[in-house]
């Protein structure tokens, strides 16, 4: 048996085994990745956290309560900014009322008070109300996304998605 032939054999052996393992590994990897993909469902049955809140010209300066009961959001237009304010008191989670005469939100449970901007100024509330992400769709409609929350004390109210310039 000559040297050359032996080495050829070895190479042959090497290549078949390589192909086999590479293919086997790739296939197993593919199958595993499918199992991983399987863990992400294609549809979601969770309640809607986004809604279309009309068009910017629907709003006048001040607090708009039309989405308060359905979606838990006040639409506030203040100093050229339109933002979606959460209606959950930061104290114990009650739902404050908007008092148009006094220009403030007042929580009926423990008396927390907030300015129109959502910043707390009286009562036990520890921090301002939260704002939700607000965007303009290509159709010119306002989209409010309640999954994204912007908090004043975190300095997030400057985030471009936390308000709409109108």
């Amino acid at each position, binding site marked *: 048996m000559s040297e050359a032939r032996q080495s050829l054999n070895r190479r042959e052996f090497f290549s078949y085994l390589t192909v*086999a393992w590479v*293919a086997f590994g790739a296939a197993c990897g*593919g199958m595993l990745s499918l199992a991983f993909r399987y863990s992400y469902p*294609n*549809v979601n049955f969770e309640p809607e956290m986004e809604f279309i809140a009309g068009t910017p010209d629907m709003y006048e300066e001040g607090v708009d309560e039309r989405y308060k009961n359905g979606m838990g959001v006040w639409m506030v237009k203040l100093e050229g900014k339109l933002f979606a304010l959460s209606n959950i008191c930061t104290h114990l989670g009650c739902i404050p009322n908007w008092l148009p005469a006094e220009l403030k939100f007042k929580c009926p449970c423990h008396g927390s008070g907030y300015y129109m901007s959502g910043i707390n100024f009286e009562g036990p509330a520890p921090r301002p109300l939260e704002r939700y992400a607000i965007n303009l769709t*290509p159709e010119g409609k306002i989209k409010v996304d309640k999954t994204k929350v912007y908090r004043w004390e975190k300095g997030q109210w400057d985030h471009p998605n936390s308000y709409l310039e109108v």
Partner: protein
Amino acid sequence: MKKLEPGMAYDTNKLNKIFAFLSVLFLMITVWVFLDDYIRPWKAVQLEAMQIKKQKLQAKLEEAEKEINKDKLESLKKKMAEAEKVVAERRKEIRKVEKEQTVVQKKLKAETILNGTLNSQVAAYTFKYEQAQLKNKSNKAVIFAKLKENKKLFAESKDRMKEYQFQKKALFKKKEKLQKEVLSIEREIKSMTTTRDLIAKAVEKTKMGPIFALRNSPLIDYLDPTLKIEQIVLDNITDDRYFQHVPRVDRCITCHTFIDQPGYEDQPNPHKTHPNLDLMVGKDSPHPMKSTGCTTCHGGEGHRVNDFTSVAHWPQNEEQKKEWIEKYDWHEPHRIPSPMLKVSQTEASCVKCHQGVEFIPGATVLNEGRRNIEKYGCYGCHKIEGWEHKRMPGPSLQKIASKIDKEFFKNWVWDPKSFNPHAMMPRFFGQSNNSQPKHMVKNVAEVNAMAEFIWDKSKAYKPFMKYTGGDVERGKELTAQVGCMGCHGVQGMEEISDKIGAYAGPYLYGTGSKVDPDWLVSWLKKPDHYQEDTIMPSFRLTDREVNDIAAYLMTLRNKKFEGYRFEEMDKEARDSILMGYLSAFDTEEGARAKLAKMSDRERTLELGYRSVGKYGCYSCHNIDGFEGRAPIGPELTHEGSKPLTQFGFGLQKQVEHTRDGWIKAHLLDPRRWDIGIDKPFKDLTRMPNFYLTEREAETMTVAIIGQVNEKIPLKGVKRLNANEKIVEDGMKVVNKFNCIGCHQIDGYRGDILAKYEDDLNEGPPRLNGEGHRVQLDWFHYFLDNVYPIRPWLKVRMPSYNLTDKERNTIVTMFQYKAEQKALVDRSKVVDWQPGEKEAAWKLWEEMACASCHTAGFNNDDPSAPNLYFARRRLRPSWIKKWLYDPQAILPGTLMPNFWVDGESTSPDILGGDPERQIDALTKLMYDFGTEKLPTKNTNYWSKQ
């Protein structure tokens, strides 16, 4: 054979080769799995939709581009350059402001920290102090002092904060002012281009670039895909899974992408916009997509997305079927309890949510079908839940012997249409399954026996009036004018009858061949004398009028029918049928013995009784001896959910093998299922033939397939609120007495108005907002004491045989329909201001009210209601609304408008203020109006 290494069973090389081969195969299969999972038909549809959207958006973009004034933009840009120069010159000042801003910023931040610290101190000390108070601790004074101090510091800090904030704002404004030229132009440019920029952004999103490919590539298409299954979860509409009701899920919008978006009406399906967005699916429609979904109305398997057929799409017609087979490889879906409804039958689904109402606005076909069901009285023989309150469709036969003669009866029953082509009574005999002589002879025996039986049961009745002869022409005119045609078609006036299409009463055809003139005059004069619970009202006709109308109706003859002589009963046939009945529970011999015991008359009556039961005559007609018997036909309440396998299609291959196909075929010819099938006489299908038109059958089918057993949760169905419930109850009474045959109620029906197309004012008054117009007590009184209001009308408001409850129901219905309070206190209306009354009279004169409303003011013929009675009848707020714009309430009314566009024709009275003028006139009417209500003896057209 190659020599192997010791201890080896196989050659390693060979093992490796097999391993390699299998692994590569495995890898290929893995790829296949990926592709199989990834390629789904709806993705192709969504890609197509994206293209369409792109085209639309591009068109929009071009439009938006056009709208931008290019020259203005150009000039603005030029101005911008100049403004920038101007602002640049103020660089130093700006920088100075910016420095100041930094300082304030720092102060603000430092203060915020201090403020926050103090805030938390105050909160903590407050709590500590409260605790100390509670436990009465010795150190509470110390804590209180600290609390006070902190509060003071906090207040000071707060003031400083406000100050800094104010400074910050001021500086910001200062800076803005320094840059104002640039900023204002910037803003202007932005306002011009916003729309375009937004659309451009949207167009960008429809492009299929590398990011699009990445987002939708296999394996990572869970991250944030653009192609995805869209769904609506309907918590208030459920699927019946038999052990449990589960929220319905509709994924139709996965392919029908634009169904709720206007602007895609011109696209082919599935990319089309819903054709009726205002009523259905639209965001502001009463049935928004998110809460109504798709399959709620259309049926089908809304949760499936992967195959056109499995969704249970159903073609509208053969043509579409062919198209679908070619395009989508469509076939009839298997094992699906309720496939999609044909588009033309979608309205059937309204019924499952809109229950307990007589009329569903917008459901044209369905309403027509339900009207036809009412017309032909299907509910008489077939129980349908929600129709229980309806009257028996046919007239009572309890006093029939005094109304018509037996010969007529037999010929009529044999073939109603041969007497009256408009007869609603269906035909039982001479049908495809019982026309053989052996059946005919038995049928003849049955009809004879039924006649004998019914005559035997019939109670005596003697007309209270005698026909004395009358003027036929006048009679005809009266028939046409008085209002008969709101309920009856009339022979000799076919054209107008067809136009009105009345069906509440029989079409008056050949009446002279049918009834006795004495009976007729009695009936016309006082309908409830013959039948206590009749809905036929009295028109308060004089004896002369009654005789005239009767004279006309007696001229309507069907000579041919009169000539018919009904065959005598074949007694053998009679006995043989009877034997069949008797032997059902007895031996042949026993039955024979029983029969033998019966006399000839007894046998006939027995067969009559059995036949009435067999054909279910009692289901539509009151016949003594059949009280409380269940209707003859199967219940239709859940007909639309009956499994297809429970429908017998017989040998009728040409009938479409669907629920609606069967029902329609059945309606058109109920006996067709017997064709070619050998059945004994007693088992022959008995559903009679109504000789329906294609259209009638089609609409009735829609109404019937809507009767499903789906249980929509309470939250999902249209729930009538208290007001709507009262209105619906009222509408049931209104329908029962066919008020809508004459009166149009807020746009609904008013059939007879077809006769007055030329001048609606000649027809029965349209009741638009009637509850607002009239006072309730007046209305209640009026329904029982009808008196003429409009002097020019020839058509008459008849006097109905209403119970007190029915009257109240009608009155409250109108009240709630117009959302009115029960009563307006009449005594508080008149409250004259100084000089107002004189002004009112002056207006009265100027507007010449008395030229039409003459009653009590002059002796001209009145051409408008007597206003002396207005005080009791009309509500002041309605009078005002009416005066202000009569056309708004009753389009086409002859009442003139004196305040066109809020301009008074008498500018010098009461300052020409329409409100004050109308107010004064209203008060005037109340002032001179009488409290008395007209009675039988009142002269309606004089001053009271």
